[in-house]
């Protein structure tokens, strides 16, 4: 049997807006992926540790506070440091257009703003996850 795609949905930082993260987590689960949701208030260390322990293929970050330029990059930096750069990292939230390119350069390969159809996120993950 084919291994299911394993996804960690994570809320870095102090932001409490979790509607999007929960809706996406459920949509990914309903599409056949295995989803672990970290809950709120995660540091980069906590997220990377969970990603390691849960052996996930994908980390999905959600942040609506505007701190994405710092906190998303903290996660990709730490993943690289631990040699986990094969994990696909995607992110979503209130992200101005001008931040999208620098985020992609930092290794957040998919960046999804408000109003993104869930299907687009699912397709992106299926199309870009390793192996």
């Amino acid at each position, binding site marked *: 049997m084919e291994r299911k795609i394993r996804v960690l949905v994570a809320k870095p930082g102090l932001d409490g807006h979790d509607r999007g993260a929960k809706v996406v987590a459920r949509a990914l689960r309903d599409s056949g992926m295995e989803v672990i949701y970290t809950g709120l208030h995660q540091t980069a260390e906590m997220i990377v540790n969970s990603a390691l322990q849960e052996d996930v293929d994908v980390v999905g970050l959600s942040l609506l506070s*505007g701190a994405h330029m710092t906190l998303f990059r903290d996660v990709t930096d730490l993943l690289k440091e631990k040699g986990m750069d094969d994990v696909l990292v995607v992110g979503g939230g*209130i992200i101005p257009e001008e931040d999208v390119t620098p985020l992609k350069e930092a290794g957040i390969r998919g960046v999804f703003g408000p*109003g993104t159809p869930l299907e687009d996120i699912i397709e992106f993950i299926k199309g870009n996850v390793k192996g």
Partner: protein
Amino acid sequence: MYDSDKVREIAKRRKEWESGSYRPVCEKVPERCERFENLSWTEISPLYTAEDVAGFNYLKDSGFPGEYPYLRGVHPTMYRGKTWTMRQFAGFGTAEETNRRYKYLLEHGETGLSVAFDYPTLYGYDTDHPLARGEFGKCGVAISSLKDMELLFKDIPVGKITTSMTINGPAPIVWAFYIANADNQGIPRTRIGGTIQNDVLKEYIAQKSFIFPPEPSMRLTVDTFEFGARELPRWNTISISGYHIREAGSTAVQELAFTLADGFEYVKAAMARGLNIDDFAPRLSFFFNAHNDFFEEIAKYRAARRIWARGMKELGAKKERSMLMRFHTQTAGVSLTAQQPEINLVRVALQAMAAVLGGTQSLHTNSMDEALALPSEKAVRLALRTQQIIEEETGAASTADPLGGSYYVEWLTDRMEEEANRYFDRIEQFGGVVPAIERGFFQREIAEASYRFQQEVESGKRTIVGVNKYKLDEEVEIPLLKMDEKGEEIQLERLKRLRADRDNDKLMRALSALRKAAEGDENTMPYILDCVHAYATLGETCGVLREVFGEYREPSIF
């Protein structure tokens, strides 16, 4: 309200209308959908008549503006005397930057202030705390000490203007900053007016900026009720909030029911402490969302007032002011689209109109660019102008409760009250709001509703203009707010200087007195004020309470 013979006649004629006029047309031209539903999935009929509100007793269920059960509004003259307060939620970067924004808003006709704090402040951390990394000034202003509060209100007459502060976990401390700033200017505490949100129950349910576990949180809340009743008679010590419950994805019915359930829970907690209901209840205020379904929102506000009045009477309130529900409204942030952002102006105008027709006491209108970033000056000015147009040009403020007596609105108001009552019974079965939170009841209900809604958007059953219909393939061109890049540096430097310059012995004494009060059962407010006057930072003061009370961790449900 209606003669029963007349109602029977109307019912009979309505059946004839259905078979003779309505059905034949439907057969020829089918309706746009099989079932019309509002945002709470309540089925909406093609027509409402006196038959649908046949049981409605005007004097008992409606009454007059300014009189029990306040269905038609809380003031006898409503907006003919004084219109709602135009209160734009604002804050970003440093206290200085936000102070400039407040003055800009006041210059353009705003009539009250509303402070948005950044995340570290919401969690009781100073800007130099490791967990504050990346968050400084991002979705609100950073306020780490009395010093920052002084700068935030520099040259703003705090003895005249009222200020609302969206702060919950550390509410007593931030309130103390505000009081201490007025103290230092020689303004008597009896003269300062405003609101602290201070609604911790909805933090566990929806907004998630909680700090302490529910029990000590409720104790701090009751401390503020008691202190406010004693020393600040013009201050609303709580704003019991449905806004965030709705933003987290609830329906309008859930927003109504969960908010009111929280409200009654606070009243019971304060009464359990031995407080007299009529001493604190007049200073309880509420905060609701204004979402897209126009009539449902209006019915929600009306139902809320009646449920509160009836419930408070049942709990033993005697004073009129204890039974009347005053509330603030904010248009629905969650309804804003990043696509074609200018159309948000239209959404906001309609939502604001619903709030006004629903009898709100104050109003925040969102800016069109808020699905992209914090609002620019121009965007916030347009949002304020929207309120001014409603006030000055539409005539909506000329009479109380203009939609009262509409068959549809009265039917929907009754129906929402019934549904809220059903939720109250379910919450009661858990043993109250706190056990229901601990069992994840509210969180699950909201997650279900929000997922169901999203699926309907995905399938095209629900339309969001510009997102899943009437799309445009052009780049968004809208100037966004740019913050002072040196802001964080300025704030960190200020904190460093503060810690070096203050009388640290006096500070340590104040902090240990607070610890003792928190460990015992004295009211913590006077001790918090002592700390704040000694220039204890938010993080230091909150840190003492964290050590005494512990921190809350939520069960993660999706």
